[in-house]
């Protein structure tokens, strides 16, 4: 299949950046990233600068790939990362626009690569549980109810790719932060620090410059792991409760 690619090129964070047009011939069996590999091979052969983009596992679980394809983070297919999106979802002769995640808190490093360390800082603020060192505890020592475990697992499916922020018209990181807070807080091991966690992570999220949630629900639609915005409501609930019950003055 013959395609026209409109790819965002930007040398560094300070550069203004612009679209560059490419003609490419791809097979419909290729993944989107394999198609980008073909493009880069052609560019290297012509002694041109290849397009910088992030990728790692290429099986939809690492959260490295990050492309806004025709205005949608990770492209048109629901519940799929860019690496798992195949070219058969496009038609011969299509023009495809590829842009980086857009958010002030995710500054562009080069082309389609953005700096997502803001997410790491949110995790550092409270995305952990304190456990004793020494021999690992027996797996079934702490009983966990099935529905709780399933809810925690659904939230833990978040791969931290940042599609929620990219999709949000406000560049809000509420879905990511809420997923982490739910995944840890729903487990008995994470309950102990829950109040402090929700306060610290929400504060960090605001300090990093993410926008405020207006409940458009775009994050939930574009999330490759289909994390529900019910987690955001849960975070709001916990945040209010923690604010009222905080030990801090």
């Amino acid at each position: 299949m013959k395609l026209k690619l409109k790819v965002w090129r930007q040398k560094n964070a300070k550069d203004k950046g612009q679209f560059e047009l490419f003609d490419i011939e791809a097979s419909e069996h290729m993944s989107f990233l394999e198609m980008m590999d073909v493009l880069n091979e052609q560019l290297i052969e012509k002694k041109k600068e290849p397009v910088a983009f992030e990728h790692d596992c290429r099986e939809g679980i690492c959260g490295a790939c990050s492309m806004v394809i025709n205005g949608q983070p990770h492209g048109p297919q629901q519940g799929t990362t860019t690496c798992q999106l195949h070219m058969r979802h496009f038609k011969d002769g299509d023009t495809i626009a590829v842009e980086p995640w857009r958010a002030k808190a995710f500054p562009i490093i080069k082309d389609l690569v953005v700096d997502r360390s803001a997410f790491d800082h949110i995790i550092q603020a409270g995305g952990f549980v304190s456990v004793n060192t020494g021999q690992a505890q027996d797996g079934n020592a702490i009983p966990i109810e099935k529905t709780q475990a399933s809810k925690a697992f659904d939230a833990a499916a978040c791969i931290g790719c940042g599609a929620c922020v990219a999709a949000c018209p406000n560049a809000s990181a509420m879905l990511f932060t809420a997923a982490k807070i739910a995944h840890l807080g729903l487990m008995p091991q994470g309950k102990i620090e829950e109040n402090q966690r929700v306060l610290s992570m929400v504060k960090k999220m605001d300090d990093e410059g993410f926008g405020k949630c207006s409940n458009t629900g775009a994050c939930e639609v574009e999330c490759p792991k289909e994390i529900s915005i019910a987690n955001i409501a849960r975070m709001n609930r916990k945040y209010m409760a923690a604010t009222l019950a905080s030990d801090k003055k």
Partner: protein
Amino acid sequence: MSLTGLFLISFLLIHLLGNLALLKPDGGVAFNLYTEFMSNNPLIQLVSKLLYFSILLHAIQGIIIYFSNRSAKGQRYAVKTSKNTSFASRNMALLGTLILAFIFLHMGDFWYNLKFNPESIPMVTIDGVQYKDAYHKVVTSFSNPLIVGAYLIGVLTLGLHLWHGFQSAFQTLGLNHSKYTPIIQSTGRIFSVLITIGFAMIPAIIFFKNM
């Protein structure tokens, strides 16, 4: 936003129910008595102050959030999609601004004249007591097609704002559950449609009756 929003939603319902008195075919007796009650009841006076405060707070917060969110997004996408959000949810700030403009128009026409410009309102005698003929003022305004048009646009904007705002307020307050969220969402949609039809009906009926 959510608390003031829900308060304003509850006001809309009361406001609509009260205004239905305009449609009673009694030459405005019911509406004038209602206006008299609303203007003099001390509890209503207190709630109305809270209402003005809520409208202003809701608007100011909305404007602050709009600008801070715009700056948090920075550069926009070249290719925009409308696949992942509703029209209303994307345009809450724009809809809100239009509603605020409509509130100024609406209050300037009725509330201001009734309160600060009583000479412009004729008097009427009901059962031997003199009342301000607010009904007459409403009918005069709603005989003007431009005013009726502005009201229809204002009410439609309000309906769209509610379409997203109603259920959004509950989500912000942390109320999201597979059991009751579908009920909140459908109640919100029915409420927005009823409020739109209800408020649009009043100027439209009065206009056509007096044509």
